[in-house]
């Protein structure tokens, strides 16, 4: 997943967001750290927000599919 840093606009994949091995809180942390400027912000693919995002995405896809099916039905 490609994301953009909210501070410096650097685009990077979530795999790249540094894991901050030095931080004692790293284990329970669902933040991602920009590899360019170091700004820390929530990792959109992790935790509760990741779950909500995935559900929203699923819901959107279902909606789009329904719309497509409906449109195809109207055309035929």
């Amino acid at each position, binding site marked *: 997943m490609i994301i953009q840093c909210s*501070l410096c*606009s650097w685009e990077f994949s979530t*795999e790249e967001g540094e894991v*901050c091995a030095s*931080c004692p809180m790293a284990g*329970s*942390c669902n*933040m991602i750290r920009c590899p360019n400027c170091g700004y820390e912000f*929530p990792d959109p693919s*992790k935790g509760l927000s990741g779950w909500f995002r995935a559900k929203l995405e699923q819901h959107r896809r279902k909606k789009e599919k329904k719309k497509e099916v409906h449109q195809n039905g109207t055309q035929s």
Partner: protein
Amino acid sequence: MHQHSKYIQKELEKDSSKKNVILVGNPNVGKSVVFGRLTGHYAEVSNYPGTTVEVSIGSLRIGTQRFRVIDSPGIGSLVPLSEDEAITRRILNTSNIHAVVQVADSKNLRRSLHLTLQLIQMGFPLILVLNMADEAHSRGIRIDIRKLENKLGIPIISTIATVNKGISELRSHVGRGGIRSGAIRIVYPDEIETALIRIEKLIEDNTPFSSRAGALFLLRGDIETHQWIEENLDPQVIEKIDEIVISIQQSIGQSIDQIITRRNNLLIRDLVKGCFSQKPVKEHRISEIISDATMRPLTGIPIFLGTLVVIFIFVGVFGAIYLVELLESYLFGEIIVPWMTDVVESLIPNAIIQEILVGEYGIFSVGIPYAFAIVLPIITTFFLLFAILEDSGYLPRLAMMADRSFKHIGLNGKAVLPIILGTGCATMATITTRVLETKRDRTIVTFILALGIPCSAQLGVILGILTAVSPLGLFIFLTTVTSQVILVAWMTAKLLPGEKSSFILEIPPMRIPKIENVILKTISRVEWFLKEAIPLFMIGTLMVSLASLIQISPEIAIQTSVENHEGTNILELLGNFMEIIVVHGLGLPKDASISFILGFLRRDYGVVFLRDQAVTAQQMVVGTVVLTLFVPCIANFLVIIKERGMKTAAAITGFIIPFAFLVGTVLNHLLNLIMPLLSQWGLHL
């Protein structure tokens, strides 16, 4: 350093049949997105040993060929100053290089070409990728790719990596390999040229790149190249090289680096002539007008103050007064805590355990209400506003404005970033000090962060609680802490008189925040807070509870008892021990000593505890100032030890503790003098 070179060499030579494709580029050019597009995201990301710099290695298959793709850290120059730059240089020492792909920002062609020239001089098979073509286009920038290709003598590909545009062309160029340019030869002033030729003869082919580039690096005082010749040349030859370098430095009388950069600048000006044009974009949209206004001090400062007012109202009034009142007094005070007390007292007969769970400092009677009824509503409202500011693109603009202010007091531009990040989390910001070039810079910025930069959680809680207690108190708090930060920043500037480096930040467009993003970011931050802070809140409460239970008898015999109050408990002992400082110096009640111990676990917890100990608004203001300047939280302290070593961590703490109490004492006595005068004008704390 030598070990690092060996490590990366070993990693890269695991499968010697694979050809290496190395991605290099300035920071913020979308290099990692290009890497992701080429390798399909299946990358192995690992820390370079002994450093925190991450190197991504992925693989790429084109037809029957297989390549190893290495994403190097973003750099400003190939003459390394920072850790990132040194590692990129070591990666470029790799053998079997099939292509070096330089990813550049199309919007900033001139800056990118400095790196291109260095790579050409080093003799690498090069491909130049001009990324972010769409953004350049929207700014009226036009680049004649074919013309520039002819001038530089290397293939150039225009890409928009985020939407995969130009990537297939890049793949086919990578398949064919980079091209070693013969089109560019930079001629320097005679004295430098003579020195270059003499060094070139001495080093012959003993550097991993062209001998001319090696000679140039040595003239520029590059440590990496010097280490290389130390490992490969006779001591007499090295001595001769050093003599040439010293003699040219003395005869020229100015920085060789500056002469070389100036010459490169002139060449870049010639190169872009006829290849680069920029039409002024006339269209000034509302977002651009707002964007400009947020960055100009005349309009930016009132906008910032307005933002603070919104924070005060939303966090301080809505969060810290209404929501806290609802949760603390009603939900916890009348329902949850009495119910929990009944349950514990009926199920657990042991008085000590009862005291630990629902006593004066019990986990259920104090720890949980503090965390969920006081801190959580304040933090949630603060994180919600913070997410709005973040998603709108206001934060980088605020950073730019802060940079300008820091420049006025002469602070090194690169030091600004960790300080700004410190307001998010000082622990992370301490790790970010690695971007600074010298150990001295890193230590001083770590010190500033530990001293006076409150993290977002603490800032939110302080803003909320102080606004609820006394808006004038909040003003005094902000003025005191800001003056301390300015003072230490000024001291830093005096201690670091070196060249001022610039603070380079890509400014994203201003936009209306997306509700979905704001909600998800708030949820995520609250979740992070619950996971990280709540266990520490509970540990802190347990510590205080045990300290209140453990009685020390006059004969120093330790016993645990609820009923026996003949001796002195640890809390009282601590209060007595700190009485002179806390009571007489800071004007706080004896029990407030505990806040400082808890503040070490988490600063926000210390502030909440203080809220219950402080009787007057003045005590609250003095206490929060001391807690902000006091030793950083335990997580930050551990990171300081890890990053800077035990000695530095001890020295920082050794300075900060007396300093914080001194500032608090001065503030308390100053307020004792000033407040009666201010109250005559109707100003009360």
